């Protein structure tokens, strides 16, 4: 059923006049959408890992910094948070470092916004994954003379990662969808392109059908890749049993 819808939308987008015009115009934004989702996700992974580790650190300062960050992010809806990063955090940091605001492109501001927001969510995913590994694993590592860090790296995190790959995949999809919000800070990704095109051509129906088609293909394609990846991980684990 869904395949049929995608098929029809795709047919229109590629072969039907005006739809195809909209498609040709908007597809310039595809690269940006994908790039921002990818970079945003990668940076969010790094932030999330650090914040997640901070959250369970024995260091009180690290713990509190991490917790404040996570609760702050969770306390604000995504769109206002994007505005906040774009109009408050980035300019303030730029001022503080005495840089030129122009040197940071809107695209990168958008990426930082996504990364900061999703870093906060991923922190909790990492923390949950790490805490799902039993305490005995840390003790076994430490009792062999491995440091806390080495035990984390070689023993705890590899096990935690297996537990968190499915939720991480979901967050990757969510971040891809949320790149659409970045149209509101004038980044020329596909949603912004649909707005621009429809306002100029008055082809609203065409533009937004094409836009929907693009997201469907992106999200379904990504889901498919992720499920393949997950299946490979689980097959690998099942294979170990045999």
């Amino acid at each position, binding site marked *: 059923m869904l395949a049929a819808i995608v098929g029809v939308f795709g047919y229109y987008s590629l072969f039907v006049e005006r739809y195809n015009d909209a498609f040709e115009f908007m597809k310039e934004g595809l690269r940006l959408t994908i790039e921002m989702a990818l970079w945003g996700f990668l940076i969010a992974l790094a932030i999330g890992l650090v914040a997640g580790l901070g959250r369970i650190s024995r260091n009180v300062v690290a713990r509190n910094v991490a917790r404040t960050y996570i609760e702050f992010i969770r306390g604000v809806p995504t769109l206002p948070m994007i505005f906040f990063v774009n109009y408050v955090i980035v300019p303030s940091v730029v001022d503080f470092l005495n840089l030129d605001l122009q040197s940071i492109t809107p695209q990168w501001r958008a990426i930082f916004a996504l990364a900061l927001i999703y870093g906060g969510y991923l922190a909790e995913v990492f923390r949950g994954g790490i805490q799902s590994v039993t305490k*005995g694993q840390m003790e076994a590592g*430490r*009792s*062999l*003379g*491995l440091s806390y860090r080495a035990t984390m790296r070689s023993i705890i995190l*590899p096990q935690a990662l297996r537990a968190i790959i499915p939720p991480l995949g979901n967050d990757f999809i969510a971040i891809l969808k949320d790149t659409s919000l970045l149209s509101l800070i004038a980044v020329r990704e596909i949603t912004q392109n649909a707005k621009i095109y429809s306002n100029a051509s008055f082809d609203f129906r065409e533009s937004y059908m094409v836009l929907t088609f693009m997201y469907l293909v992106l999200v379904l394609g990504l889901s498919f890749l992720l499920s393949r990846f997950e299946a490979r991980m689980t097959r690998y684990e099942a294979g170990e*049993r045999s």
Partner: protein
Amino acid sequence: MIRVSGLYKTFGKDIHALRGVDLSVDSGEVVVVVGPSGCGKSTLLRSINMLERPTHGIVEIDGTVLTDKKVNLDRVRADVGMVFQQFNLFPHRTVLDNVMLAQRKVRGRSKAEAGEVARQQLEHVGIPEKADAYPRQLSGGQQQRVAIARALAMNPKVMLFDEPTSALDPEMISEVLEVMLKLSREGMTMIVVTHEMGFARAAADRVVFMDEGQIVESGTPGEMFDNPQHQRTRDFFDKILSH
């Protein structure tokens, strides 16, 4: 070689797990620690390699005072093997990797050397053929023997065992005890918490009876089993030997 003196450990405000424990263990000596549940046996073992930080008192191994804040505990722990009730093998690594990991990361051995030591130790505990298996493919007894091999591969000065057979099905207990017995004959210094009195009789130089965070008495297995001095000790052995 190991000297524990005046050891106190308090959890929270009012759980007094250890209340002034003194214990010395010579090189090559095998000490079996027994006592009722909750008397502090695990806490004592875990204090000896500082998995638990004592509230008070001194732990000294081979001249190094571990309770001294400046000591590099990682280095000390590398010399103290520990075997847990729940095995705690690394499930994402093969048996061989389990035994090699710390050798590589802590001892800095080459892959070839660590691999060779690992295979020797697996041979030593009687399961060389399982090198490439994953822990979950092994029986409990085999897993525990791998855990022993993993600890031995670090060439520890002392081995600590915390109820190593308590999580095992009865038919697997003896295979683990046999490995431990062999170790004791080879002169390994061992501190063993166990309820296996047969093992204590066969392997222990000394049996230590603990109750309520203190050592009540200690002596050779013969003295302790046949002629305990304290009523509490007598009651304890009566209970576990007649079950």
